């Protein structure tokens, strides 16, 4: 075990493929970036043994609370790194604005795709892009969501490039997962590292379930005064089951499986011990393809037959809407900046990573010539599966990829390699740089888009690794948006756009404040009857002494 205080000494910045990755904590060796000094000082004061004991406390608590995930058939505690990732407020504000803008444009795009199709007739995006997407569902055409929202929850994956700017890597508009880990990570950090919170003003994240419930209720079919909201899960064996259960619990709504629901007479009901009860809003975490065996895969056992018809007749709202996949398709991604300009008349705040559309013969030829420098992603893949990182790939892999690309150029995109930023991470008993990304979560309730401060930071734990998905052995970090000194306190909570402020703290002068001069407790705690009358006790002692035992009653 290492000596105290030298944990950061051997920290050297990462240079993947000859690039200089941006480090979230250090400008260069030894000089911390603005806002990270306090964290740096605390880390310097700790020993490896101390960190290790906190790590085992963390694992035990995660295991006890059942916050685990399956990796190769084994139940493991959720991999949370001990060192938080810091984002200063100024940076966060810009990121937040960029995400709000992007989600707005994607909403508009989806409304257009499943409606009039203006963007196609105006020639901004080729119609073929949508009709050739496997996530485009004709069943969703003409479904007008009650409050106009299709993307109730979005997860926008961003990474920080070598220049320190955030780039959008991917949009997730179907069932973005991970938000439960954001909240659980924060709870865990507060338990194992309370002293870190004393020196930082971290923006709270636990307002998310309330915001989500608000948005889901706002999405209810018209005329339903008190909508019944449920969370729909594929079941216990789904890798995100913990999250489904977590959200249902935090929102106080039922968690249903497909078999708990039934559709008849144009409505959806759940089977309860009290008979059938109508359901109005379903926050479904089941993929489109498995949602309704009558419309999609007929072999689905986790869906509910008839759901789409009820949704089409407007008696139930599905969140997120069916067919959203067409807008988070990796090929559609390349058109999002254009969509932002087209629908909002604004310049995109967040940049895309430079991406090549392989259907264009010129771009295809260009990428084929630079295969060992680029990253190739299957258009409809997720979870990091199928990604080929050019500089890491073997000749055989590249050869078979080349064949795939030529046969099915619609199925792939090519991206410039981003040297993901790094942050100090506790691995193998030392602190070393590891690459990471960030998935902020946005909720749209129809009146505004709210972004959860921070988001899920995912870390690639193998040295030099660039794939952060937890299904690929990735870890996570608690993500702290550090409140600025000027802001937040003065700002009142605003509907929709505002961030969670400390709203339960009583305002100065409010009636919650205790009038001065009164004692805290109204009565002193009531004492029980006295244990022993001292005189009687004394007599008892004497009796026993006389009896020759030699021991008082209290000493045994």
């Amino acid at each position, binding site marked *: 075990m290492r000596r105290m205080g030298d944990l950061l000494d051997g920290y050297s910045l990462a240079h993947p493929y000859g690039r200089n990755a941006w480090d979230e904590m250090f400008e260069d060796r030894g000089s911390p970036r603005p806002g990270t000094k306090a964290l740096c000082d605390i880390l310097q004061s700790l020993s490896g043994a101390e960190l290790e004991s906190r790590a085992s406390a963390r694992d035990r608590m995660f*295991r*006890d*609370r*059942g916050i685990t995930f399956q990796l190769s058939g084994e139940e493991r505690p959720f991999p949370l790194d001990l060192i938080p990732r810091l984002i200063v407020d100024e940076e966060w504000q810009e990121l937040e604005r960029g995400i709000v803008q992007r989600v707005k444009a994607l909403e508009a795009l989806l409304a257009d795709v499943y409606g009039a199709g203006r963007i196609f007739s105006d020639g901004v995006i080729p119609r073929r892009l949508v009709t050739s997407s496997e996530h485009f569902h004709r069943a969703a055409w003409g479904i007008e969501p009650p409050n106009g929202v299709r993307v109730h929850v979005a997860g926008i994956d961003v990474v920080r490039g070598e220049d320190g700017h955030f780039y959008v890597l991917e949009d997730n508009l179907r069932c973005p997962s991970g938000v439960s880990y954001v909240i659980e990570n924060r709870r865990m950090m507060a338990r194992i590292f309370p002293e870190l919170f004393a020196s930082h003003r971290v923006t709270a994240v636990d307002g998310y379930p309330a915001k989500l419930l608000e948005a889901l209720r706002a999405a209810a079919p018209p005329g339903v005064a008190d909508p019944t909201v449920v969370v729909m899960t594929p*079941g*216990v064996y789904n890798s995100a089951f913990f999250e489904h*259960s*977590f959200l*249902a*619990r935090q929102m106080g709504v*039922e*968690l*249903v*499986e497909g*078999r*708990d629901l*039934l*559709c*008849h007479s144009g409505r959806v*009901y*759940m*089977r*309860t*011990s*009290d*008979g*059938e009860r109508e359901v109005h809003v379903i926050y479904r975490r089941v993929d489109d393809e498995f949602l309704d065996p*009558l419309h999609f895969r*007929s072999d689905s056992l986790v869906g509910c*037959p*008839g759901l789409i*018809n009820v949704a089409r007749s407007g008696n139930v709202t599905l969140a997120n809407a069916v067919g959203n996949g067409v807008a988070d398709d990796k090929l559609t991604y390349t058109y999002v900046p254009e969509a932002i300009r087209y629908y909002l008349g604004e310049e995109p705040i967040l940049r895309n990573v430079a991406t090549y559309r392989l259907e264009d013969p010129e771009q295809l030829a260009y990428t084929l010539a630079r295969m060992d420098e680029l990253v190739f992603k299957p258009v409809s893949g997720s979870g990091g599966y199928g990604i080929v990182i050019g500089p890491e790939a073997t000749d055989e892999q590249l050869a078979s990829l080349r064949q795939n690309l030529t046969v099915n150029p619609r199925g792939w995109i090519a991206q410039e390699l981003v040297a993901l930023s790094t942050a100090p991470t506790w691995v193998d008993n030392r602190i070393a740089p590891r690459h990471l990304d960030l998935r902020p979560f946005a909720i749209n309730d129809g009146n505004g888009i709210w972004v959860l401060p921070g988001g899920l930071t995912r870390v690639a734990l193998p040295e030099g690794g660039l794939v952060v998905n937890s299904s690929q052995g990735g870890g996570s970090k608690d993500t702290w948006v550090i409140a600025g000194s000027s802001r937040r306190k003065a700002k009142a909570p605003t509907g929709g756009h505002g961030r969670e402020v400390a709203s339960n703290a009583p305002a100065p002068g409010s009636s919650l404040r205790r009038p001065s001069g009164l004692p805290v407790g109204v009565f002193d705690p009531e004492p029980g009857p006295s244990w022993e009358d001292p005189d009687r006790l004394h007599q008892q002692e004497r009796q026993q002494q006389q009896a020759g035992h030699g021991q008082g009653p209290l000493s045994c």
Partner: protein
Amino acid sequence: MLSRIAESLFWIGRYVERAEDTARILDVHVHHLLETQVESEAELCARLLAVMGVKAPEADPERLTSQQVVDRLAFDVGNPSSIVSSLVAARANARGVSEAISSELWEALNVTYNTIFAEGTPSTAFSAYSFFRFVKERAAVISGLIDSTMSRDDAWRFMVVGRSLERVDMLARLLAAATSGPEPDWVVLLRSFSAHEAFLRTYRREPEGALAAQFLLLDRLFPRSAFFSLRAAEDCLAELDPISGRLGPSDEGRRVLGRLRTTLEFIQVSELMFELPELLPDLQRQCAAASMAVATRYFRKTNVVEWTMEREGVEGVSSR
């Protein structure tokens, strides 16, 4: 409440109670064998297995040992009603409904499970005594959390119904075993249900057959007595369906339990010992009937909708 969740809660109640009662029974059984030089260990063991409805592991009943019985009833994952299996099943049920129970309760069940398997095989990690003690303590924590962290809503009621039915069933089994052979050791029997001290405080004398049976079956105040548990289950069922027509409640489960409770309530106390051979099997049968009735009424209470795919891809619906 979702029917699936109601059913899981009912079974969490049953499984935890089953684990606890089995631990109590085995604990006393093992202790009894150690304390007294009993005539035939094998015979006692065989009777215990029979009453728990578990097949003997050894072909020759003459050579049955306590160790085998403990392995079979406590640790054997192949025996679905062993302590370990019951706790695994309770945790699996809780996992699927963890949003419907308090997080403390879920955590308690999960920690129990984790501890059992923390050192690999439970039968080598625990001595019998420490395991029984552990199970009883965990069951107490779990029951305590059920009572102190859950609203008295339907979720809580289903758990209590499950727990109470299991308690009556286990009690009936144990009494049946004890009274089928030669005069049983009533102190041991009372201890199996933590009833010995309560008995002493109530009657102020060493137990003998009639009094002990009265206490375990009929006592109005002791929470593990058959009467007390039946009334708890009946009350919960009444609260689940408070409407009672002019011909009485329509709920079959409530009817079965009510009749059973009345039998105990107005039994001729002096005749109790003579009626045991019929009463005890009847208790088990009626508990099973009540359990079935609860399942039929609450866990499968919807029409089955059948969807058929027609040739043109138009769907039709038929209710039955």
